[in-house]
């Protein structure tokens, strides 16, 4: 196999097909960006789930002056009720850990969370936030058991599942992920068709050469390799471009969006860099397969 010959053939092919190749690379890049975006959204969701699920899962809010729950009857929780609830929680088998958060603690945390919005903090008095027990479950799925057991206990305002609170948000992210996967699928399909057309045009524009190659006994590999590599090269270029676009998105996200998102962590560079091999793999496999099957039809011995 004479590498120099193969490479010069690829160069000739790419030049001859330049407009087609550019179109192919653009479509492929966009589809790969979609794939990568789906991947990164998933990583982000996992990151947030880790962050949140690691924290308190169930909050048992206790009655305070502002409580509207009929359970409280507009009265503050008594010390006795508080102790009862805590003991009951600690003896519930599903519960792993229980933390008490006083009104002062809650206010402290609130101030910390919204330290960039002093107006908001100043409008909230230091006893406006309810005291609560923050409960960690052995198995986060068992929320319903704990909720039903404590919902009607005297002194309990409400039981709130953080997971439930976050569910619409996670659902939204899941939907975004699904949407980008669907778009990616459609785009990849279009890219596959484009590869097939590009290879067909390339094979047609080089039919003299391939005709002579067949005639003088060049092997199939020798005849097809320039076309295969052409497709693969376009794929690699697209994957690199797509990775670049995703990295740029990450930089932009860090600079613009991340400072405003106090409540969670943003994925670090790990998944963003990890997506490149995935995209390379998809691009190369897809374009090689598309070229291969096209060539089998158009460049038979």
């Amino acid at each position, binding site marked *: 196999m*004479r590498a120099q*010959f193969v490479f010069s053939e690829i160069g000739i092919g790419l030049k001859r097909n330049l407009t087609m190749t550019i179109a192919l690379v653009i479509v492929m890049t966009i589809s790969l960006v979609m794939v990568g975006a789906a991947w990164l959204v998933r990583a982000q969701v996992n990151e947030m789930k880790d962050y949140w699920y690691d924290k308190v899962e169930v909050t048992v809010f206790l009655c305070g002056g502002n409580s509207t729950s009929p359970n409280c009857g507009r009265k503050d929780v008594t010390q006795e009720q508080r102790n009862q609830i805590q003991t009951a929680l600690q003896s519930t088998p599903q519960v792993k850990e229980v933390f008490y958060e006083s009104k002062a603690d809650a206010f402290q945390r609130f101030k910390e969370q919204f330290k960039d919005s002093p107006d908001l903090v100043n409008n909230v008095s230091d006893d406006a936030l309810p005291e609560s027990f923050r409960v960690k479950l052995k198995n986060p799925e068992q929320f319903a058991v704990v909720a039903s057991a404590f919902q009607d206990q005297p002194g309990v305002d409400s039981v709130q599942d953080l997971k439930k609170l976050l569910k619409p948000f996670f659902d939204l992210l899941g939907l975004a992920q699904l949407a980008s996967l669907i778009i990616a699928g459609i785009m990849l399909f279009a890219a596959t068709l484009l590869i097939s057309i590009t290879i067909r045009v390339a094979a047609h524009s080089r039919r003299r050469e391939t005709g*002579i190659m*067949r*005639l*003088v*006994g*060049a*092997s199939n590999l*020798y005849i097809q390799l320039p076309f295969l590599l052409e497709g693969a090269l376009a794929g690699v270029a697209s994957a690199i471009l797509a990775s670049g676009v995703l990295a740029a998105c990450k930089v932009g996200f860090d600079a613009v969006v991340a400072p405003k998102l106090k409540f969670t962590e943003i994925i670090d560079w790990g998944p963003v860099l990890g997506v490149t091999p995935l995209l390379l793999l998809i691009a190369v496999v897809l374009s090689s397969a598309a070229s291969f099957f096209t060539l089998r039809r158009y460049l038979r011995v």
Partner: protein
Amino acid sequence: MIRLEQVSKSYPTSTRPALDGVDVDIEKGEFVFLVGSSGSGKSTFLRLLLKEEVPSAGRVHVAGKDLSKLSYWKVPALRRQIGCVFQDFRLLPNKTVHQNVAFALEVIGKSQSAIDRVVPEVLDLVGLAGKEKRMPDELSGGEQQRVAVARAFVNRPMILIADEPTGNLDPSTSVGIMKLLDRINRTGTTVVMATHDAAIVDSMRRRVVELAMGKVVRDQSRGVYGYGA
């Protein structure tokens, strides 16, 4: 070297078979003219030798191999033993004379040093020494056909197939090409040439196989083109 046993070939688009029970035996080193009117089966005959077509019935042996038993990935090896020349030359217009001939070796993976050695030799043989850097459109028809012959012969095939090699050339140029083919034949290469050119067949006095309606109607050693065929 080449043997066809009861070979028939039908195309799905035609009711009459292109070849019908053809028996031909060609020895190593022979020079054979394949004559007959258009549609008599000459081209199908040649395509069978390259396994560009497979016969509907019968067997084709080329260079000691039964082509029906030759798997597809071995077809390139077969074709390396057969050189081909056509009426329309089939040169690559964007390559020089040297590059055109070298291409045939490059694509079968020959080393650059071998190419550099062999290509000038064969260009000298066909009488194109000094014209290596010309482009095909700067050459006369006869010269272009010489390039094609050089490309067909550069890998020293055992068999040379020529499909109307003089069809596009004037008579005096044709004589030059025939002298060249004769010279190649004298190196021991078997030559099979399909032609319509009566003057050439008559002057060469070589073996003549005549096809009509897909059948061999005449097989003469030292034959002539025929009687108004």
